[in-house]
Structure formats: C-alpha cells, structure tokens
C-alpha cells in the first residue's frame, strides 16, 4: 500500500500531520510512537523576533470547539533554530516549519535563515493568523497573498505552503493567487474569527477581545472549502479543521486534500494523529485501494 505523498520535491511517508500551534515543538511528553509515525511535523509558528503572546484569557471552550488568541507566543527564529530545530531534526520526521511575519522582507529574512539551517521538507507561510491587531490579513487579499508568496519563492530553497484564512468570501480565489505566485501547496483552514461573551461581566471571554474558532464545530465548513479549492488548484491541499478521527480525515481526503492535519483535537487526545493514520490505512484496505491517490479527491458529484 502506497500512502506517501509529495509537496514540491519533498516526499512524506504518509498524509497525516498536525496543525501548527497544536503540537508544541514535539516535546518529550509526546511518546516516540506519536511523533515518529507522523507524515510531517509542524511546530508552532515562528516569527522573526520573539513574541510574548496575548494577555489571558487566551482560550475559551465553545460548543464542540474552542476560541483561541494565543498571539503566536514564540522564541523568535534564531532561538528556534538554535534550541528547537536540532531536536526536531533528530526525530527524522519530515519537518514543515511554519513562519509568520509583518512584512515581505521579514518573511525573506526568516526563509534565508531556514535555508541555512537546512534539514527541512517545506516551509509554511502563515498568512492567516487573525490575532495580530491588523485589520486585514495577508490571506484576505489575493494581491497581498500573491506578492508575499512570490517574494518568498525567490528566496526559499524548500517547497512553500501557503496557509490560508477561511475568513474570506472566496477562499479558492486566494488559493489560485498563491498557486500562480509559485506556492507548492495550500494549507487550509486556519481559524474562523469568533467571539464569546461572559454575560455576568459583560466582557469578552478572550483577553484579545476576539479570537479564532477551531475544533469539530468548524469541520463541515472546512470540508466544503477544501472541496472547492482542491477542484480549482493543481497543487496539493493540506486539509484541516476539526479532525478528531480517521473518518473525519477521510472526508478531507475524499474532498481532495492530499494531506490532513489534526489540530485542536491534539489537546484532547494526543494520540489522535496516530489513530487517524491507522484508520486511513484500514479504510484503504477495506476498499481495496493500493495507492492513496485513489482516495484523494474521489468525491462523487
């Protein structure tokens, strides 16, 4: 059974990965098995300089989901490369490093540093974090997305993945812009802008006032968006949004995703990616499939 997939020239042994920000840096508390069997590891988004993140409360549980406004707390790219990357490389699991920046120049500087650090399989451009006090996200404009991806493509020696925001009218149009600009894959979806209110205090339940909604609650919307996008772009789509089981992941694959990422549910059960992988294999076996490509985009219309 062949379940390996490709993004650009990079090969991943299986299609199951994790959404950035939901698996830390694969720290020692995760078991060997959970880490080593992943198709790719995606650590938490890194920025050029260290960021302390948003004030509490940073998270809030909602029906079948959560709202978060962590604010990309991270040690900055230099400390990441010095302190975190060696341990991540030592796992031997293909690495997709997620980066975010306030300008195209900053993206380029970070990519050059990652080029020099070496040992990666891809770089994910987080164009869609909604928590940085900006009015418009890069991923909310086809023009801005195209411009950032083009600039990044000039410098990157690794395949580039554009991570898109679902907070747009037509996500497929943004994905097409990223593809035309040279992106090697699309990763979708990031969180949906959301809010929850403490009615006793009449205050937002999130310190940053608003945050991003994730978890099973958003899954059907994410599946629809992946299905629409995968039908329009030629590059692979990494699908995510509320995956809790192999069945959930299969929806994304059938909708057209080449890889799937477990996000919020890692917080509930860190063994989820493993269960997803085993379940996909079992499904393929039961349906007499020998190659994952028979499954990807097999939605009947």
């Amino acid at each position, binding site marked *: 059974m062949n379940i390996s997939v490709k993004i650009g020239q990079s090969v991943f042994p299986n299609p199951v990965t994790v959404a950035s*920000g*939901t*698996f*830390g840096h694969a*720290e*020692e*508390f*995760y*078991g*060997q098995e*959970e880490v080593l069997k992943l198709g790719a590891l995606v650590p*938490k988004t890194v920025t050029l300089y260290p960021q*302390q*993140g948003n*004030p*509490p*409360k*940073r*998270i*809030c*549980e909602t*029906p*079948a*989901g*959560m709202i*978060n406004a*962590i604010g990309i*707390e991270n040690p900055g790219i230099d400390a990441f490369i010095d302190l975190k990357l060696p341990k991540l490389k030592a796992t031997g699991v293909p690495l997709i490093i997620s980066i975010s920046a306030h300008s195209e120049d900053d993206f380029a500087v970070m990519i050059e540093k990652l080029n020099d650090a070496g040992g990666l399989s891809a770089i994910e451009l987080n164009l869609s974090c909604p928590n940085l006090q900006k009015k418009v996200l890069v991923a909310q404009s086809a023009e801005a997305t195209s411009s950032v991806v083009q600039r990044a493509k000039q410098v990157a020696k690794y395949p580039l993945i554009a991570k898109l925001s679902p907070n747009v009218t037509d996500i497929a149009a943004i994905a097409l812009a990223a593809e035309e600009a040279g992106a090697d894959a699309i990763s979708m979806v990031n969180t949906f802008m959301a809010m929850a209110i403490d009615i006793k205090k009449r205050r937002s339940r999130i310190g940053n006032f608003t945050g991003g909604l994730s*978890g*099973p*609650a958003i899954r059907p919307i994410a599946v629809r968006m992946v299905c629409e996008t995968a039908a329009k772009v030629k590059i692979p789509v990494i699908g995510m949004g509320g995956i*809790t089981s192999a069945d959930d992941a299969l929806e994304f694959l059938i909708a057209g995703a080449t890889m799937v990422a477990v996000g*919020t549910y*890692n*917080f*509930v*059960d*860190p*063994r989820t990616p493993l269960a997803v992988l085993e379940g996909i294999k079992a499904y393929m076996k039961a349906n007499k499939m020998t190659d994952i490509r028979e499954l990807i985009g097999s939605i009947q219309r």
Partner: protein
Amino acid sequence: MKKIQGKYKVVELVRVNDIYYRLVLDAPALAKAVKPGQFVHIRVSDHFEPLFRRPFSVYRALAGKVEIFFEPVGKGSKMLASCKKGDVLDVLGPLGKPFASPSRSVKQIVFVGGGIGVAPFMIFSDTLLKHKAEKVLLYGGRSKAHTFSLAEFKKNGVKTFISTDDGAVGVKGRVSELFSKIDLAPTTFIYACGPKPMMAAVAAFACDKGLSGEASMEEVMACGLGACLGCSIPTTKGYRTVCHDGPVFDLKELVFA
C-alpha cells in the same frame, strides 16, 4: 502517550457534603508517579461537550489509588459527578511542576488553602510525615461545608486554623488574616493554593515579611501539556503556562493584576 496517558477504573465516587465530591481511581502507576502539587487531566466525556479534559489537583495517592476532590460547578465537573463506580476514565498525568520539597533548614511549613485549594496539601502532608518542621494549615472557606478533611490533616500532625466567610467555623473573615494566629520565623516556608485574591494577599504578605514560598495556580486549560500555551499567566519572567511551567510557582514570580 509516553507513560502519562492511561485508562483507570473509578473505584469510588461519593458526595462528601453539600459541596464536594470525592473520586477515587484505581491507578497504581499514577499513584506511584504523582508528586504533591501535580494534577491529573481527566476526559469527562467521549463526545465534544465539553471538548476539553478537566484538570484536578491530586488530593491523595496511597496504596495504588489516586483521589481527587471537586465541586461540580461547571459542565465538566458536573459530568464527572455523574460517573459511576466501575466507569473507566481516560487520564493524562501526573502533569505539571510539583511543590518544592522543603529543605531540612525549614522549621515551619505553612499551608494556606482556600476552599478546594486545600487538596494538594493533603498528599503533601502525607509525604512530609518525617519532616521535623512544625506544620500549620491556614484554611479558609465560604461556609462550614467548604472546610472538609480537617481530621485527616490533624492525623498527619498538621495544626489547623480555620476561617469562614460566615464565621460558622473558626474565625469570621479571610484566610490571610489567620497569619496573625501563628508565630512566623525566617525559616518559615509558605505553600498557597486557592482563589486569586487569596493568592495575591498571601504573596503580598510573604513579600512584606520577607518569607519564601510557593503557590499553585489555576487557569482554564486545553492540552495540559504545555503545547497550546492557552493557560499562560503573567510572571516576572514573562508569560508562563500554568499546566507545564506551573501550576506551582515561586510566590515572588507571580504578577497579580
């Protein structure tokens, strides 16, 4: 999960009084591994409501059994209260940084507990039976029912002083006011666990008197592992996660708004 995820059978779930429930899990590996101040992260539902696990401080870990106390106030704890003997729960633990063991030079250990915040001090006093320091518990609750397990603390050689909001037991007032009841020394070490205003009062008191101590903090948590960075609180070293960097922090590091 490396050693820390397990499925454990509920051997007892009883309503202790009007407020609290006591849950006992048959969990030999967990009971052996847990240190005072650490917590267990329990999945209370197989469904998406509530989505997250719920963290509970370990109250006792004896003879292969792990005990927790809780007040069913929210969705998750109410669901836990409806468990039955024989149910199997998915538990992550032990998690978090435990209390520092008091050194031999510590001559007096003062536990300050507010309501359910007293829980980690029971397992702590279990491990301190041989420590020669005088052990004192300053214990505050809203009402009589909020002050449980006093006899068990006394059995562990802990002197107890009580305050309640209504004065039904002990002194009427706040737990921090009980400090005046005891003779503090430079070799006193404070351990605090309770609601934030209490912790702020204890931290201010310790700072004022030049005393050292630790506090076990609480915050809404998702992963419990230090991965999501959702439960971060401000400290003098920047934001730190309650689940992984804590829940125990040096009193001097805490920042109260």
